[in-house]
């Protein structure tokens, strides 16, 4: 999602994901410290959709990510209609969302791993609520 955002809204036509090899401007790069199979504390941005959905300022999530937003590209997460919805303890971006969209969210953690019968995850509730409310 950040690559699409970078290419089509931020004007970085050759934006790419480092996982796909050399060339272009890498927007998503290998994390200095892999978050593969880790539990992390996530700070939700005040006023964000995610904060509203979770009903909390700080949550714990599970992540399998080895890649994240390049430190040199952090600024694009706050430009052209995108905003930072969550960060981790190091201050790095862990979720983004669009301010001009009913539900457009990307997480650098896996909320589905915290969902259970009778205890659905707030992100997936928000997704279905938004879809069912669409005209």
């Amino acid at each position, binding site marked *: 999602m950040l*690559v699409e955002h970078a*290419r089509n809204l931020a004007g970085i036509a050759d934006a790419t994901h480092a996982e796909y090899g050399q060339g272009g401007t890498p927007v998503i790069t290998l994390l200095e410290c892999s978050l593969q199979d880790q539990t992390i504390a996530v700070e939700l941005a005040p006023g964000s959709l995610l904060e509203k959905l979770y009903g909390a300022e700080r949550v714990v999530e599970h992540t399998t990510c080895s890649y994240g937003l390049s430190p040199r590209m952090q600024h694009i997460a706050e430009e052209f209609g995108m905003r930072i919805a969550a960060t981790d303890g190091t201050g790095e971006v862990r979720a983004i969302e669009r301010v001009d*969209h009913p539900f457009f969210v990307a*997480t650098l953690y896996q909320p589905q791993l915290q*969902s259970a019968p009778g205890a659905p995850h707030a992100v997936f509730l928000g997704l279905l609520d938004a879809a069912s409310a669409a005209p």
Partner: protein
Amino acid sequence: MRAVVVTVLIDLPPDHQYHRATLEAIRHASDDRGIPIDIRVVSTDAIGDASRIATPGSAVVIGPGSPYRDPEAAHEVVRKARERNIPLVGT
């Protein structure tokens, strides 16, 4: 109530833990809200026309498991969902 078509873009095999967890999380939310759903699993190399995925009243979930087989097709679905106000979550 009409069913929400939820397209899950994922290249991991159906028996993979993260594949299963993604579908189950959608079902958990559906059960909780009483919102009927129609889940359609699509691998990125089978997306074809992104316009037919990001349609009004639908939702899109981009599952874990990069590198994707066809990242450009996935980007096109993201673009269509953004432009058409289709709910989308990327995990």
